[in-house]
């Protein structure tokens, strides 16, 4: 421990046990504990206690306080602290000698005090014990102290946090006991587990037989976490002992704690210990799938399908459960009898699913949303069931969307009721569109694509579509346009896309004029993605340029909403890169282009919000990187103009983006940075187009050094960090510069260095002015840039986060606590 911290610690411990003093900030004790954890992880706790006796005194004092003087926060802290120390066995013995641990965690300790009613104390007690139980002595202590019984009752605590922590500790004890057994060959006989583990197992057994659902749930949750976390061969012994009781739960109607039971079965099935196929487990899961309600069975079905190893029959059953709601929708809305095949297999649970779908609006919406989300999650996984009924699913999703927008008119009474339940339901629409987007992958049935495009277009067009639905619809459309593989032998965008695009752009036009900023923004984001991928496709270009979309996007550069302005900047940057911002044969093309640069520069200099300015800086960097025609015309002028504006910006992210621009420019003029790793493949060196002295002269004229030096002392760390990297790059690149003389006038160098020192001290002062390259290079070489880079990488708050600072703050706060009444906003 730092000597300064050791010096401050006794005073702080004294403050903590002084009932007249209060620790101001509730985060301080948490941070203090974090620090002690770091210290004990790095070294001996025993040594720490011996060198700092005030810590043991603190624990003893807490036990000696009068009931009314005990602060729940300090007590909770002390319990956790004691546990942290006792995690090391020698330190545990040391504390035991003084009976401190028994005092803190035994039955006569806080467990029986009045402050026990405060959840923080109970939580601290459990967390302290959890830290302590890391070794056999800890396990024995837990068994002897009577704490296990307290933990059983704490599982049902009124505080979620306490109840959960109690369960976690029971799991921890079980796992630790099983790990200790791992060496011997597992056998259900001759059970020699620690007493407390045996007690926990007996309690779990009793709870599983209990008539109280809460107790069953607690037992199931403990087991779920145990099997999820511990993969010792002994878990198999434990499961062998408990599985009949678990299976017995299925006999009850309704099944108690079904949700927890599903979690347990999946946790066991996932455990590598049971990979050797446990028939009884699969049977239990199959029974469970068939008797749970559709809503409860969904997560089990999904979990089953995600398993790496699982019998095919169970997989089929699970998949049928997952598909059932969609099958029912198709049946209820189909004019003709339902399609053959998969549907026939699912008749078994049909009535239950139909009942759920028709029982109430919320049940119907809940089941459909869950099913669609589960299928969306399943589809991209390698475990995705085969054959995947793509056509059926697409039909089902399309009909669900039609039921939602009211365009479906089913004739059956069930269909009409579904229509009533789903009409205008945004939740289902969003879920269906999410899944529809995912379905674009792996589609091979081309005949359904026009149907999908039609429903997407209807949704995008419908005045009733909410902004969140439209966003999902745009995303799904993008998936269908970009991901759908083309039929074999098909060139360009495929057979459907060009037709669809012609209908899409008028809709997009309308959405770009939406009164909701969310919609305008989503439409712009959609356009940016689409043009980035399809900017070179003739059909796309034609459809886009024939529409008003580029013009409207331009107008959105002046949108009142800054998010939209920023997106419009990005979109225009993208369109311009592809030569798409106006009709290519228009005579005023170059004026439009010039106008765009001017417009973006205008935004960069005057926009009151950071997002659009940041977007402009990003677009300019991209343009420079891709040698955009307008940039290439006069790159130096362009970079210098942008830097001049960016350097004044109040948003540090804009300034950082300016440095990025410089970096690209320098890479183009001086070559790529040297690879940091000596083994990396070296890129072919770009030979600077001009000799180095000339390049440096140009950089000086462009005031790039002025910008970079100023940024080096920026009050915002990322800017300084980037500038430092940039200057290091410049220094490395110019190191072998043989064409340059030593600076003739050393007073120039001194003057530059003096200015830089003033900047470092935080003064703004005068700019560096016009400089000679030699002077700049000399100044550059004299700076300790590596040292600065190291300091900046440490982050600016390493001092504030130091333990010393924490201790000082806690001590200082005590004195003034009464003056400044706790305040918040």
């Amino acid at each position: 421990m730092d000597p300064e911290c050791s010096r401050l610690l006794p005073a702080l411990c004294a403050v903590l046990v002084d009932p007249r003093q209060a620790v101001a900030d509730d985060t301080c004790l948490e941070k203090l504990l974090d620090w002690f954890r770091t210290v004990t992880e790095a070294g001996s706790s025993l040594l720490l206690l011996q060198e700092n006796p005030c810590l043991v005194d603190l624990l003893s004092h807490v036990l000696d306080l009068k009931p009314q003087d005990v602060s729940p926060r300090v007590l909770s802290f002390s319990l956790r602290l004691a546990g942290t120390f006792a995690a090391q066995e020698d330190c545990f013995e040391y504390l035991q000698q003084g009976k401190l641990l028994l005092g803190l965690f035994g039955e006569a300790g806080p467990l029986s005090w009045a402050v026990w009613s405060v959840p923080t104390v109970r939580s601290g007690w459990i967390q302290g014990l959890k830290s302590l139980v890391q070794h056999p002595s800890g396990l024995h202590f837990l068994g002897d102290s009577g704490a296990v019984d307290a933990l059983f009752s704490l599982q049902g605590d009124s505080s979620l946090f306490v109840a959960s922590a109690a369960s976690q500790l029971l799991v921890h004890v079980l796992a630790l006991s099983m790990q200790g057994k791992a060496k011997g060959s597992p056998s259900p006989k001759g059970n020699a587990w620690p007493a407390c583990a045996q007690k926990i197992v007996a309690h779990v057994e009793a709870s599983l037989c209990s008539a109280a659902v809460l107790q069953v749930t607690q037992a199931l949750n403990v087991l779920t976490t145990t099997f999820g976390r511990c993969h010792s061969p002994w878990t198999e012994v434990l499961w062998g002992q408990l599985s009949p009781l678990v299976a017995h739960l299925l006999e009850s109607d309704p099944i108690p704690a079904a949700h927890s039971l599903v979690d347990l079965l999946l946790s066991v099935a996932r455990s590598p210990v049971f990979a050797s196929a446990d028939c009884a487990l699969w049977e239990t899961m199959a029974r469970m799938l068939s008797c749970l309600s559709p809503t409860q069975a969904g997560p089990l079905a999904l979990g089953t399908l995600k398993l790496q190893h699982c019998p095919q029959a169970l997989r089929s059953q699970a998949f049928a459960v997952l598909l059932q709601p969609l099958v029912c929708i198709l049946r209820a809305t189909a004019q003709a009898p339902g399609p053959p095949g998969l549907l026939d297999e699912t008749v078994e649970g049909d009535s239950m699913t139909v009942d759920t779908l028709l029982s109430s609006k919320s049940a119907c919406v809940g089941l459909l949303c869950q099913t669609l989300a589960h299928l969306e999650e399943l589809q991209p996984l390698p475990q995705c069931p085969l054959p995947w009924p793509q056509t059926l699913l697409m039909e089902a999703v399309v009909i669900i969307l039609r039921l939602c927008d009211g365009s479906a008119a089913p004739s059956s009474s069930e269909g009409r009721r579904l229509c009533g339940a789903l009409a205008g339901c945004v939740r289902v629409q969003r879920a269906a569109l999410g899944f529809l987007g995912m379905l674009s992958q792996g589609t091979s049935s081309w005949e359904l694509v026009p149907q999908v495009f039609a429903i997407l277009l209807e949704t995008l067009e419908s005045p009733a579509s909410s902004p969140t639905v439209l966003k999902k619809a745009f995303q799904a459309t993008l998936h269908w346009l970009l991901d759908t593989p083309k039929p074999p032998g098909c060139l360009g965008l495929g057979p459907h896309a060009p037709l669809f695009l012609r209908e899409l752009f008028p809709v997009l036009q309308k959405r770009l004029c939406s009164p909701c900023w969310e919609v305008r923004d989503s439409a712009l984001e959609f356009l940016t993605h689409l043009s980035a991928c399809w900017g070179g496709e003739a059909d796309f270009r034609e459809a886009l340029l024939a529409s008003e979309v580029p013009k409207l996007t331009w107008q959105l550069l002046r949108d009142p909403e800054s998010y939209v302005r920023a997106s419009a900047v990005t979109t225009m940057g993208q369109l311009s890169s592809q030569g798409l911002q106006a009709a290519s044969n228009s005579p005023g093309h170059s004026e439009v282009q010039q106008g765009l640069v001017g417009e973006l520069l205008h935004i960069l200099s005057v926009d009151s919000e950071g997002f659009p300015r940041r977007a402009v800086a990003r677009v300019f960097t991209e343009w420079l990187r891709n040698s955009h025609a307008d940039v290439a015309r006069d790159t130096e002028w362009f970079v210098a103009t942008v830097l001049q504006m960016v350097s004044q910006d109040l948003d540090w992210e804009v300034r950082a983006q300016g440095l990025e621009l410089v970096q690209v420019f320098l890479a183009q003029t001086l070559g790529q940075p040297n690879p940091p790793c000596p083994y990396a493949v070296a890129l072919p060196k770009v030979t600077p187009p001009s000799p180095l002295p000339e390049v440096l002269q140009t950089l000086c004229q462009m005031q790039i050094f002025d910008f970079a030096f100023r940024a080096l002392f920026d009050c915002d760390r990322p800017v300084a960090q980037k500038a430092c990297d940039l200057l290091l790059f410049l220094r490395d690149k110019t190191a072998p510069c043989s064409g340059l003389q030593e600076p003739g006038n050393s007073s120039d160098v001194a003057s530059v260095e003096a200015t830089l020192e003033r900047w470092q001290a935080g003064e703004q002062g005068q700019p560096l002015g016009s400089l000679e390259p030699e002077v700049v290079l000399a100044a550059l070489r004299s700076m300790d840039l590596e040292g600065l880079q190291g300091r900046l990488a440490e982050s600016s708050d390493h001092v504030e986060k130091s333990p010393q600072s924490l201790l000082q703050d806690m001590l200082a706060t005590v004195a003034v606590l009464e003056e400044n009444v706790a305040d918040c906003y």
Partner: protein
Amino acid sequence: MPEIKVTPLGAGQDVGRSCILVSIAGKNVMLDCGMHMGFNDDRRFPDFSYITQNGRLTDFLDCVIISHFHLDHCGALPYFSEMVGYDGPIYMTHPTQAICPILLEDYRKIAVDKKGEANFFTSQMIKDCMKKVVAVHLHQTVQVDDELEIKAYYAGHVLGAAMFQIKVGSESVVYTGDYNMTPDRHLGAAWIDKCRPNLLITESTYATTIRDSKRCRERDFLKKVHETVERGGKVLIPVFALGRAQELCILLETFWERMNLKVPIYFSTGLTEKANHYYKLFITWTNQKIRKTFVQRNMFEFKHIKAFDRAFADNPGPMVVFATPGMLHAGQSLQIFRKWAGNEKNMVIMPGYCVQGTVGHKILSGQRKLEMEGRQVLEVKMQVEYMSFSAHADAKGIMQLVGQAEPESVLLVHGEAKKMEFLRQKIEQEFRVSCYMPANGETVTLPTNPSIPVGISLGLLKREMAQGLLPEAKKPRLLHGTLIMKDSNFRLVSSEQALKELGLAEHQLRFTCRVHLQDTRKEQEMALRVYSHLKSTLKDHCVQHLPDGSVTVESILIQAAAHSEDPGAKVLLVSWTYQDEELGSFLTALLKKGLPQTPS
């Protein structure tokens, strides 16, 4: 048993990140989704794992409601919606929707600037999160779905702050967020109608405080600023982007105007224009005075307050600068502080709370030698002042609001345990309602008596009216019928209709009773005496003596029989139908008294 459940994940007996889960009539709502600024790791966000255990978050939660734009109420929102995965609706008022992303962005920039943190939300995430927001107007009833509705009320505190009523059927909960019951320079006082919710969840920051006059604090503040600039010093006021800063700006602007002062006042980071824009846009949310004078002069168009340029900090002479961030832990405010700290003529005024570890916290706790980067020590010679301007209701205000809303019970959040305890007792004594103060993670369960709507059949109603009894709203009256529960509906119909609808056959239910009488006469004679007695007693009823010797009164049948054990006694067997239960009971009681003596 229907119930309302409330579990604070944050703000339960603390003033940290507000996040309260409410379960009402099967609907789950999250009230606020705040961040704790005192932590740099995941502890700054509420522990959402407790709700993700209940399956998919979007399926479990019906909506999230944000009361106002302060980060301890909305700071975890992008994390929750874009990183934890909530994809449902988020409700807030229009001004909150406009200002919230600015503050989130501001905080993100500081966090990334300072820490270079990786596990933090991005700008894109903030935008995507804001796209899920549904903005609401004051007093507008918004249907979240067919059953759940919410309504916003004015809360004062900051621009756009609202209290929310959450209602499902006849059950309702009101959540106040942070509120202020006294108007300030730019905002009005909180107000709610007498909505009599089942539960009022109220903040209790100043649970035990009766706040000193605001005027005093303002005078004090102006005096300190004035004295400093008069002696040529510079005043630094670290603030967060929007909120309290505007209140202080109006205060200084008015004072400068009145005193005709020429010392420059600057506001950094271009926020004045932004603030100005929002206050103009949401002028209806400000107080009456500002609204009234708006036509002649917009209070937020400041004459004396100008945009700050970084170079100004080095200018000689006095000035006042508002700079962000408010805790002096990064960026511009810290940079200016470092420049000015060494001069005792200067002053820094901290108008808000600072978390441990920040320079703000250190100087407020009296530390005057600060270690900065690179082992540099900064000696603070400038004066340090703390001046709270936060706009919360004090104890009196909280009691006033409870009185206004007339809730069935109250739950306290956003306060310190000790202070809450005091207020809890006060509320229970004064209003005779239960008051709860759960800690974080503790669940309070309140049983409710929901009124269940029952449809009544026209036939049954007509039959009642035919008896001349018209239904009256103020006079509840007993009505007999059969309750049918079908298709999640309740209907009251006549028993005949119920039988018809359900396809059931009618069953007769008869009650029987034995009455023992000491009488030696024969059974026939006994029956005749019963007949005469009833005939004379029940003048309005049809009493008959049947040929088999039994007596009937309406559906009631009376037969006399010999006692099996006692030859001196007789047994009267009385039986009646369910419909005549009243008469049957009356007759039994009458016969038990015995028959009148016959004249011998």
